[in-house]
């Protein structure tokens, strides 16, 4: 921790991935590994093309703006941000500027930390714009993939109001969840759908801001955390050494390979984007009734679900917090409950076995083999006493390993508890018959030999004995001897 007062501002770019078409063109909006297949003439800026605003994107922006308690303007208004770069086919990006004209102006959102405390993040603005094409730099050449050119992009800018990397991440995770819950984006950083710019400054007291350093294009939340912490340390070190004047108002970039920030350009070299009105898009009056309709239809938000999980299902704040973090996880959980699984059981499986497995395999829950229906086979088997919870873990692992339904796995490997009384009784008698010495000692006061008998029976039954029943029978038979 720095002994200085840290101030952080965030710009989060999130691609809208769930519209049919792009923000200003009829090009298909779909993530694909195949380059240059979702491209319209507009996306490649052939001469004579014109932008057409995607109404769905405006609808989504209004929804976000409402959730962020931001002011929604009377008109949608777009500007051009002009600069030359091979990934920008038109030579300008259609965006919104200044903040007063953006689809969301001002606003705030309250965020809950894992420990239950809350903090408020103030919003500067939310605007709708378009993404650039994707450049890949190879050894001596670069390739351009226009699939991404024109994909809707929401940029959410906070004021400098955050004070730790942890809070920054908690905020970002919650915003990501909102994008997912509202059906605006998968918000998948692996697909490059989320990118952040981070502003960090340090100072001696909370009332003055230090020199702001911007770190551009940080592409995952863990990198955001690392970049913030690196920058706090770098600036603090300089300040400690009395060299704070060397902290320059500049733009740096996060370098994954060296895990450090690297100078990109100084403030004096800042690009003049020559913003001006996009003349091809008339100011669009936003119908207040349409806005109301959008606002009424805002889906259940993550914190609302969290509260429901705690109040209705009795989950701990911690578990509920983990489950709501990503919508697909919460949806998975709700599906389990809907299938009749005990909510706490479902939450336990999710928070331990399942999320652990996903993390380890680096896959999303949507790619997870054991759907709620299949998981239900396991939990039902436990509930019905068919398998023990220990056996359940075995079924879980084998099922994932062999991509076979839990019921099939249980049959295939005869994983079940033996609770047929006479069968189990026979084995108990057999084990006791073979252990006269141990019985003598047991009777003589070595009561923990009881576990020895349990072990022997388990060995004989290949672990399939129902432990409760086994204990009953052992007690009964030992008493007879």
């Amino acid at each position: 921790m720095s002994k200085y007062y840290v101030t952080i501002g965030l710009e989060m770019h999130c691609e809208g991935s769930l519209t049919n078409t792009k923000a200003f063109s009829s090009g298909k909006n779909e993530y694909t590994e195949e380059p240059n297949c979702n491209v319209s003439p507009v996306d490649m800026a052939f001469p004579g093309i014109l932008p057409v605003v995607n109404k769905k994107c405006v609808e989504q922006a209004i929804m976000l703006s409402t959730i962020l308690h931001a002011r929604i303007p009377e008109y949608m208004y777009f500007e051009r941000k002009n600069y030359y770069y091979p990934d920008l086919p038109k030579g300008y990006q259609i965006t919104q500027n200044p903040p007063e004209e953006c689809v969301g102006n001002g606003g705030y959102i309250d965020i809950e930390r894992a420990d239950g405390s809350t903090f408020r993040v103030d919003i500067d603005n939310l605007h709708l714009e378009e993404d650039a094409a994707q450049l890949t730099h190879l050894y001596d050449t670069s390739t351009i993939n226009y699939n991404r050119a024109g994909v809707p992009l929401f940029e959410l800018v906070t004021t400098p109001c955050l004070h730790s990397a942890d809070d920054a991440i908690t905020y970002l995770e919650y915003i990501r969840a909102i994008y997912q819950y509202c059906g605006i984006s998968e918000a998948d950083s692996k697909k490059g759908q989320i990118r952040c710019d981070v502003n960090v400054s340090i100072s001696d007291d909370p009332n003055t801001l230090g020199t702001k350093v911007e770190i551009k294009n940080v592409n995952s939340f863990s990198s955001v955390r690392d970049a913030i912490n690196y920058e706090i340390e770098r600036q603090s070190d300089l300040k400690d050494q009395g060299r704070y004047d060397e902290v320059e108002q500049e733009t740096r970039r996060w370098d994954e390979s060296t895990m450090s920030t690297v100078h990109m350009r100084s403030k004096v070299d800042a690009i003049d984007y020559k913003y001006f009105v996009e003349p091809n898009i008339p100011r669009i009056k936003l119908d207040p009734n349409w806005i109301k309709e959008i606002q009424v239809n805002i889906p259940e938000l993550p914190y609302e679900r969290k509260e429901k999980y705690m109040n209705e299902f009795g989950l701990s704040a911690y578990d509920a917090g983990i489950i709501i973090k990503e919508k697909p996880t919460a949806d998975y959980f709700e599906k389990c409950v809907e299938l009749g699984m005990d909510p706490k059981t479902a939450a336990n499986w999710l928070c331990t076995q399942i999320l652990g497995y996903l993390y380890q395999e680096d896959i999303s829950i949507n790619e997870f083999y054991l759907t709620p229906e299949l998981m239900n086979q396991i939990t039902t088997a436990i509930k019905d006493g068919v398998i023990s919870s220990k056996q359940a873990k075995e079924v879980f692992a084998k099922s994932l390993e062999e991509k076979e339904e839990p019921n099939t796995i249980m049959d295939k490997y005869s994983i079940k508890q033996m609770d047929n009384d006479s069968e189990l009784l026979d084995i108990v008698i057999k084990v006791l018959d073979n252990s006269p010495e141990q019985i003598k000692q047991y009777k003589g006061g070595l009561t923990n030999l009881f576990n020895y008998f349990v072990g022997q029976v388990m060995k004989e039954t290949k672990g399939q004995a129902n432990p409760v029943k086994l204990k009953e029978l052992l007690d009964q038979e030992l008493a007879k001897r």
Partner: protein
Amino acid sequence: MMNKTIVELHEELKNNKVTSDELVKESLEKSHEVQEKCNAFVTILDDAKGSNVTDDLLSGIPFGIKDNYSTKGILSTGSSNTLKDYVPFFTATAIENLMSHGCIPVNKTCMDEFGMGGTGTTGHTGVQKNPWDLTRMCAGSSSGSAAAVAAGVYPFATGSDTGDSIRKPAAFCGIVGYKPTYGMISRYGLFPFASSLDTCGVLTRCVEDAAIVVDAMKGKDPKDMTSWDSSNINLYKDLSKDINGKKLFYIKEIVDKSNYKNLPEETEKHLDNFMTTLDKLKELGVEVDAVSIDQKLLNAIASTYVVISCAEATSNMSNLTGFSFGPRGEGNSYQEQMKDHRTKGFSSLIKRRFVIGSYVLQACNQDRYFKNAQRARRLIVDAIKEQFKKYDALIMPVGTGHAPKLDNTDKVTDDELTPLDEHLQIGNFGGFPSITIPNGFIDGLPVGINITGNCYDDQNVLNIAYALESSMDYKNQIAKEVK
């Protein structure tokens, strides 16, 4: 045959006096002749064939397309080296609309590079010469279209108008040039110059033809958000010569001879001729008043236009980098390649305008130049709209006279003449419908008069032009070389 109007040609086709193939053949022959003399075309479509003749007035009739309209499978250069080999894979909506009526494109016409410049001298294939006098310019930027229509290659050619690019060449070539209300014709597929001013339109030899062609080009286009539904407007059907009781105005400060200290003789004749034309209107029962507009606003027209058009142009043409289309520049980095493409590709005039555009948009200059120009634009438009409350249209002389010499030796340039030369830009500032028709000759060269009305009032503007045209002797004139 090609000196006839659309309606006349349609009659001939319907009565089997001529076939569409024959018309196309004649038009192509004429194209080569005019190419020789005037250098009017970037491309002549020698394998063009006639089409079925239906009841549609335009069916079977050849026409020309300005080279800044995107045409699928046909070279479309915008008269620029940056697109010298560019063959688009989509057709501009306006051209698609037109061609759905069965008319046949026979050539792509030269222009000032991307519509920038009013001389017809900056295109990458050279200078366009005025068919009335080959030592003179056509004006621009629709120079090739104007030359071809005036020379009788076909009854009409498309044009585009950002400042006066249809209406001034029409005047200098003795023909009709019509720029409808902004957004009446989709701009999708028109290579942009300054999007807030760019308007598609047409050059013809009579008002009737202009109405027929724009009827076919117009319509709301889902690909152009600035286009609007004009399905209730039928320009040709509703043409009427009854303009009795209409009220027109002209801008006193620009037209009044007494306002000029050094009026060139040619301009004096031009203004006198304008007044003579007004008398004809009065005979038709039209009231024409001189209206005073703040001289400061009038003086601001030209600079307002330069600032706004250059700003939009520099941004609009940022797509021309030579990466995904156009000749790839040489160099070791993308910056070098872009620079090389643009250095070689653009004429010096365009580069100068990019510099201006870039300068006025810079954060430190934007308020002083770009934002002020937007304010001035609004004030000018408001001043004219105020008059449209009382008057049906604005009527003005086009330019300071006839076409100047290509070597520019015969024209006096004087700041006090600037508003007279540039006032047509008001039509683009307001998106107003505006038409130029020929109204006589000065020193044997044609001159024009312009009628501009309020937005969406195209019918009214055309009717006034139609009636006035009928009261004069310059309808359907074909250029006769005077020297």
